[in-house]
């Protein structure tokens, strides 16, 4: 190649380059823009601006959960406020209110004694199956209440006291206990319902019991009652209805896919929180009257045998029924001397 030929070739390449320059590099540049990982990503500033508003914030997620891309939805904020505000306040004030009420009642009435004094004879009040159902519900409910209370109040009460590590381990363990002890509670609830529902249907004398305040406020007042008085029937139906609500919503929370939309799931969580707070308050009153509040009451679920005078004062119609049956079956051995 002569010198002139080489120069012509270089000039031709240069000319081609000058003409094609605007075109040829365009394809690689466009590709580069398409794969630019930061060109369309959300900046922190934009995200915080969006979070201040009430608009929905959604994106794309690589995991196969259709709910995952929903970062912020307007309804979620209202739910979060209710959950961390209203429900927490309701829980705290329900607990404090019930404990205060029981304290005031104890200061006014003291421990309710057996007016006629212990008779020295006992009567069978609850059989083994009844006490088993009661204690299965009681043990599981107390564990559920404590671990549930930790979910509501733990971060503000326990976390500052025991630190992040201990609180994290405790809450993770509590979550496992809560998730699985719930099934034991459901079993106890179903068993108690079957065993006691027949005895907890409303009767006319329940109105008399309510009108007389159950005889709880005045010494020597004992309205008639069957195996369960009106107060106990209220507790029974509170446990049945509240327990059923907690069980259903609890299963929905365990399996959010079954619960439907996020709004449904949030509704179940609110019902779960409200029912738990109210039922815990009812159970606090039940524990009080079944232990320190009334002499002889614990024996009913302790040994299953109660003092005859206690039974006559608080469940007169039931004692008449039992004694009538005993007389009909030659004494029957239902009433026995205390050991």
């Amino acid at each position, binding site marked *: 190649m002569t010198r002139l030929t080489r120069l012509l070739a270089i000039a031709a390449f240069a000319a081609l380059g000058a003409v094609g320059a605007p075109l040829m590099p365009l394809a690689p540049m466009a590709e580069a823009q398409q794969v630019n990982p930061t060109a369309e990503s959300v900046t922190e500033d934009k995200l915080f601006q969006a979070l201040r508003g009430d608009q929905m914030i959604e994106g794309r997620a*690589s995991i196969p959960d259709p709910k995952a891309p929903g970062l912020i939805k307007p309804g979620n904020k209202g739910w979060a406020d209710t959950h961390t505000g209203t429900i927490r306040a309701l829980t705290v004030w329900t607990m404090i209110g019930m404990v205060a009420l029981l304290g005031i009642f104890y200061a006014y009435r003291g421990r309710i004694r057996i007016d006629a004094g212990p008779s020295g004879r006992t009567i069978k009040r609850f059989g083994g199956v009844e006490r*088993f159902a*009661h*204690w*299965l519900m*009681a043990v599981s409910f107390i564990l559920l209440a404590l671990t549930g209370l930790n979910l509501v109040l733990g*971060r503000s009460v326990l976390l500052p006291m025991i630190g992040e590590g201990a609180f994290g381990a405790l809450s993770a363990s509590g979550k496992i206990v809560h998730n699985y002890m719930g*099934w034991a509670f459901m079993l106890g609830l179903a068993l108690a319902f079957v065993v006691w529902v027949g005895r907890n249907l409303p009767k006319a004398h329940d109105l008399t019991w309510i009108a007389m305040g159950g005889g709880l406020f005045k010494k020597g007042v004992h309205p008639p009652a069957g195996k369960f008085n009106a107060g106990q029937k209220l507790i029974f139906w509170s446990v049945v209805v509240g327990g059923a609500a907690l069980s259903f919503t609890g299963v929905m929370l365990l399996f959010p896919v079954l619960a439907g939309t996020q709004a449904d799931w949030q509704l179940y969580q609110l019902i779960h929180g409200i029912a738990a707070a109210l039922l815990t308050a009812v159970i606090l009153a039940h524990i009080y009257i079944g232990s320190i509040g009334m002499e002889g009451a614990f024996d009913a679920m*302790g040994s299953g045998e109660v003092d005859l005078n206690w039974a006559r004062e608080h469940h007169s119609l039931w004692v008449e029924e039992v004694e009538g049956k005993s007389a009909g079956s030659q004494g029957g051995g239902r009433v026995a001397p205390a050991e």
Partner: protein
Amino acid sequence: MKAFLAAVVVGIIVAVGSAQLLDSRFQTTTPALYTTEGARITSPGDNLVQF
């Protein structure tokens, strides 16, 4: 006392049994369920209150 102890034992058995049944048949951990060929999710551990 026997009824109470029986309730405690049965409660534990039901809880452990339900955990075994649910974990083996109905429940999967998030890392296991959502790990794909393109994305591996590791277990967050026990401490979920890291700020």
